[in-house]
């Protein structure tokens, strides 16, 4: 796609408008950033802090986004109940975390305790995701694409209110782990330890997923099913099992994201907590190129950083009042812009007719 296409080809109002939009956006970003940076309102150390917080938030988005992308890659459906899969793990594990905190185990053996919590949350979310696939999606496989989409939305409500019934409507919070408190100082830059923990554990999980998909037998089967279900079946791959496995892997990642999120932002654990991260992670998956695994990781990190830095850098510089409240506006504007300018996402390739 060449920039300023209308000059060379036949004139088109659509291309013209899109190009004007493109110029305006770049101009807005440059002017806003220039105003903010030249005012010196926010110091370099503070920018680094914002960036680090954005990176941590982004790694949580990325972990959830992987669930969207894995399922889309294999079934070409958007599992809108995936935010609730995240909630299931996070909400269930808060009780385990409280118990571990009461007995003192959490602060005596913090790494072991966190590992235990991640495994537990992963298993809960995995179970929910597999049940979801078995009960809500498998019977509808082969029906028009709108049908599973609507079902996913219904399943999302069902899960929210089931968990409200199980654990109540109040807010819970993860206990704070002592070794994760405090900061690492480099000069006058202070990075909270918990943010480093979040980023590293997300990285480990993502590397694990990469290994699983690229280096194992089942990974090969997943790629084959994603490529062409019928041929994969002819090669003797049990498609139902592979699809269920994919849901399970996505669920496990979402559940672990729930615990990692609980370490990073301990408060606000309730039945509705999966909604916004779910939507954000979906945005991240589309940003990176839905169906593309490294794309989801990159999209998540990118979205987290843009959200953290965008309002202060661009919007405040343009003199927009209440810039911080527009954080979500930035996230979803990114989604719209990506859909206009690069529908395949950052790393996505154009989908073939059969997939699209």
């Amino acid at each position, binding site marked *: 796609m060449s920039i300023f296409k209308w000059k060379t080809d036949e004139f088109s109002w659509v291309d013209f408008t899109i190009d004007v939009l493109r110029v305006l956006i770049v101009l807005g970003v440059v002017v806003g950033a220039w105003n903010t940076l030249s005012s010196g309102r926010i110091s370099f150390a*503070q920018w680094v*802090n914002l960036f680090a917080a954005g990176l941590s938030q982004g790694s949580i988005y990325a972990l959830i986004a992987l669930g969207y992308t894995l399922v889309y890659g294999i079934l070409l459906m958007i599992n809108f109940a995936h935010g609730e899969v995240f909630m299931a793990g996070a909400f269930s594990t808060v009780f385990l975390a409280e118990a571990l905190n009461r007995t003192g185990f959490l602060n005596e053996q913090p790494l072991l305790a966190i590992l235990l919590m991640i495994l537990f949350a992963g298993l809960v979310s995995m179970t929910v995701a597999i049940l979801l696939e078995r009960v809500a999606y498998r019977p509808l496989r082969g029906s028009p694409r709108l049908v599973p989409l609507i079902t996913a939305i219904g399943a999302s409500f069902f899960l929210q209110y089931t968990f409200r019934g199980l654990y109540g409507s109040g807010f819970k*919070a993860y206990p704070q782990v002592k070794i994760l408190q405090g900061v690492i100082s480099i000069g006058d830059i202070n990075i*909270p330890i918990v943010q480093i923990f979040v980023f590293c554990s997300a990285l480990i999980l993502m590397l694990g997923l990469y290994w699983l998909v690229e280096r194992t037998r089942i990974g090969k089967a997943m790629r084959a099913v994603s490529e062409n279900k019928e041929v994969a079946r002819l090669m003797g791959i049990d498609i139902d099992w592979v699809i269920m496995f994919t849901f399970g892997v996505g669920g496990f990642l979402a559940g672990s994201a729930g615990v990692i999120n609980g370490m990073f932002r*301990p*408060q606000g654990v309730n039945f509705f907590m999966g909604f916004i991260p779910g939507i954000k992670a979906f945005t991240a998956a589309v940003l990176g190129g839905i169906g593309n695994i490294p794309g989801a990781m990159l999209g998540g990190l990118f979205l987290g950083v843009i959200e*953290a830095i965008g309002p202060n850098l661009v919007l405040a510089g343009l003199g927009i009042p209440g810039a*911080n409240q527009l954080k979500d506006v930035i996230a979803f504007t990114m989604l719209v812009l990506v859909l206009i300018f690069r529908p395949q996402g950052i790393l996505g390739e154009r989908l073939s007719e059969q997939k699209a």
Partner: protein
Amino acid sequence: MKRLFLLLAVLTMLIGLSAPALADGHCMDALGCVEVAPDDPIVIASILAMSGPASFYGADTLGGIELAIMGRDGMLLGRDIELVEEDSFCAAEGGQAAAQRVAADESIAGVIGTTCSGAAQGAMPIISEAGMLMISSSNTSPSLTNDDADAGGTYYPGYFRTAHNDLFQGAMGAQFAVEVLKAGKVATIHDGDPYTEGLAVVMASVFDGLNGEVVFQGAVSKGDTDMSAILTEIAASGPDVVYLPVFVPESEFLVSQAANTPGLEDTVMMTADGSFSATFAQNTGEAAAGVYMTGPHVSGDAYDAFLAMWAEEQPGGTDAPPSGFHAHAYDGTNLLLDAIEAVAEEMDDGTLVIGRQALREAMQAVENYDGLTGTLTCQEAPLYNGDCATGTALAVFEITEAQVNEGAWPPPIVWDLSMSMGASG
């Protein structure tokens, strides 16, 4: 001539006395009447946040209503009292939907509600149009009793409240910040809800009036978990006090993340009754210690008796009220029931007739009512239409280690308006 005049005067008085509801057995009330057949109960409704994040407020208020009804053995004028419960979810749409269901039921004499100010803005146009009255025990947004639409007022006739107007609470926060904390610069944060925005605006303007400097006024969105962007911006503006009258869990995120934001580690955090719950301190953790809260404070023998009754009856299954507006709900319910008792008239066939306009007038006439929350007088000044509370049942609390680690509640009181240097003002 003189005799005729006297006769006319007597007639006028007679009509005047009986006219609000009845003349020859027909309803003469300007807004219509509620007719209660001989064996039917007297019906009142509640529109509260019974589900969602603010549901602990709803449970708190409902307990107050139930105890007020139990306090009369469930009877009024020889009839049973029936309570119809509606859920408003703490949102304008929820308040609107609940109000439509209530307005469709002509047997309902009056409403206790809503929990959240936003819900009241959705509900009041419908309640008012239906000729009903609504008494809120926890709406505190100033706009609800302000009848100047140009100044953001959203008052509708028929609205009353026993909760304090935020004009009192925001001003109190500002006075505390200036007089006790000796703060020179303040930053305020709201979350877009009329309640939180109203408080933040009032606090800032009173603080400004007391020669303080308002260095930042901003907002977060409900559902935000990452507050680093706004906190960084606040840190850059260098306030002494951050005033964040938002709800849980946003207040929990703000306070706990501020403790790790360079430049805000030692800044004093103040919040208001939107975060007034035992879980705030426990969920926020160590960072909550030292946070100041303005909130409802009720004391006295009558209140102790109320708490004893709560512990015995356990409305909603809790030993103690889950939040701070139960006493306001108790007073509000009693005011409503008293008003019904005062204006209801019994016809020959035993039907009770309650004039809706008469009911509103009876509420408007409440003066020096001795309630749990102090002396109540329903006011009419342009800013306080239907404000029955006088703002004395408020205090500043400080969260301590005991609230964070042991779950003790409520926190100790550190200040109230009687300690203010400008108490007379």
